[in-house]
């Protein structure tokens, strides 16, 4: 397996630390003019999502982690696994477990494309696009004419996600939602 020495450290690098795959978030090079050089590194453990801060001496190295981001289309769930397929035309499929899917489960819509992070060839995490478009399946009746005023109500979307929406939203409408904040963005014109 390849390894990276301190000279190659940069944010975005995927490395193994204490046996876990990590992504480098920050790399600070510190060196007194006449002294020993160090790299102070912040990494996010991709297994636990925790952020670690570590110091390395110049010349030390870390093993590269076999971590790859792939675009995949969501196919279906069998209750235990969520099945995805590569969009590169290979039709290769991958099964992600509940841990890998995590909170993304509430944004999963069949035929939409997600980023699946593979670690040693198996799904480690599933990341939704920043914006998804989902249909409202349940919400209180809309209040006609009330388009400008504040005020909001919960609406349940086709995936089970619940978001706060303006009062005028009705069942059957398709909404654009920001998956990072879980906030309603706007209505999508139905085709």
């Amino acid at each position, binding site marked *: 397996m390849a390894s990276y020495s301190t000279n190659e450290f940069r944010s975005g690098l995927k490395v193994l630390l204490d046996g876990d795959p990590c992504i480098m978030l920050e790399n600070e090079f510190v060196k007194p003019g006449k*002294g*020993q050089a160090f790299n102070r590194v912040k990494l996010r453990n991709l297994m636990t999502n925790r952020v670690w801060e570590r110091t390395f*001496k110049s010349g030390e190295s870390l093993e590269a982690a076999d971590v790859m981001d792939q675009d995949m289309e969501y196919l279906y769930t069998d209750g235990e696994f969520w099945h995805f397929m590569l969009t590169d035309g290979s039709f290769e499929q991958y099964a992600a477990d509940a841990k890998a899917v995590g909170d993304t489960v509430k944004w999963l819509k069949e035929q939409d494309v997600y980023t699946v992070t593979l670690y040693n060839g198996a799904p480690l995490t599933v990341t939704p696009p920043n914006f998804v478009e989902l249909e409202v399946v349940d919400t209180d009746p809309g209040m006609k004419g009330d388009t400008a005023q504040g005020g909001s109500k919960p609406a349940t979307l086709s995936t089970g996600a619940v978001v706060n929406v303006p009062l005028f939203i009705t069942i059957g409408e398709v909404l654009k939602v920001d998956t990072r904040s879980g906030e309603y963005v706007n209505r999508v014109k139905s085709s």
Partner: protein
Amino acid sequence: MTDQPVWQPSASREHLKSRAQQLAWVRGFFAERGVLEVETPVLGRHGVTDINLDGIAAAVNAAGVSGGWLQTSPEYHMKRLLAAGSGCIYQIARVFRNGERGSRHNPEFSLLEWYRVGLDDTAMMAEVADLVCGWLGCDRPDVLTYREAQQTLAGIDPMAITDHDLYQYCQQWLEPEQLAGMGRDDCLDLVMSFKVEPLLGRGRPVFITRYPASQAALARVVSDDDGYPVAHRFELYIDGLELCNGYWELTDPVEQRARFEQDNRRRKAAGKPEMAVDQSFLAALDAGLPECSGVALGLDRLLMLKTGAERIEDVLAFPVERA
């Protein structure tokens, strides 16, 4: 995202203008004091033995000279000029240090190096303060010994602490197996970099003086009041930024030879390539280097302080990734 080539400079036009003004100011400062501007090779036949400086090898092939190194500092060439009777000299040099890239480092940078014949380190510090504070408009620096700085800011006595206690202390940053290969000075550098330096020169610039003799490099060594050997070496810190390094220069060729040899022994032990010693430089010391002090000051960092830039690329037209 695609990897489009970036052609634009990373520094603003305002910062580039400030750079030009700084150069003019430095030249004016030395012209007024009768210090001669010189230029020495950027490309030399020899590198340095210093264990913590990695040169960048060149591939010269001309007039029977092959190989060579981009210079990490103009020091040896300038000392040869001093030995030849140049009198007080300064240089605005481009220097090269491999592997150094961070918010305060670029492998190629601008170094202002100057030598004053007949001045000791105390007088030299006063001149550094005139230059730096004159340009930045800051307060004149305080003076703190290396020992005092570590005692007050890190809570350890760098002269008296046992190796065992120092390793224990350093475990707040490094694992025991990482510390295993490190010498005492490497550990003190760790304390300096992570604990002391960030707090130095806040509010008011500060000179750190009297480095442990083991970190003397090319400075002469004396004993402090408690009998610990210390170097006539100083550094200036402003807002946690290391700005310059100065020595009351070692003129003894025998001692200099011994330090080069010791450097190479340390290099060998650390698995680094040993470096050929620059015999022309030693011959110049044999001929006689006048009593002098010298300073190397990072001009890019000085400009960072002047402009308030957080990262060195903000004051460089093209950092190494864009060069």
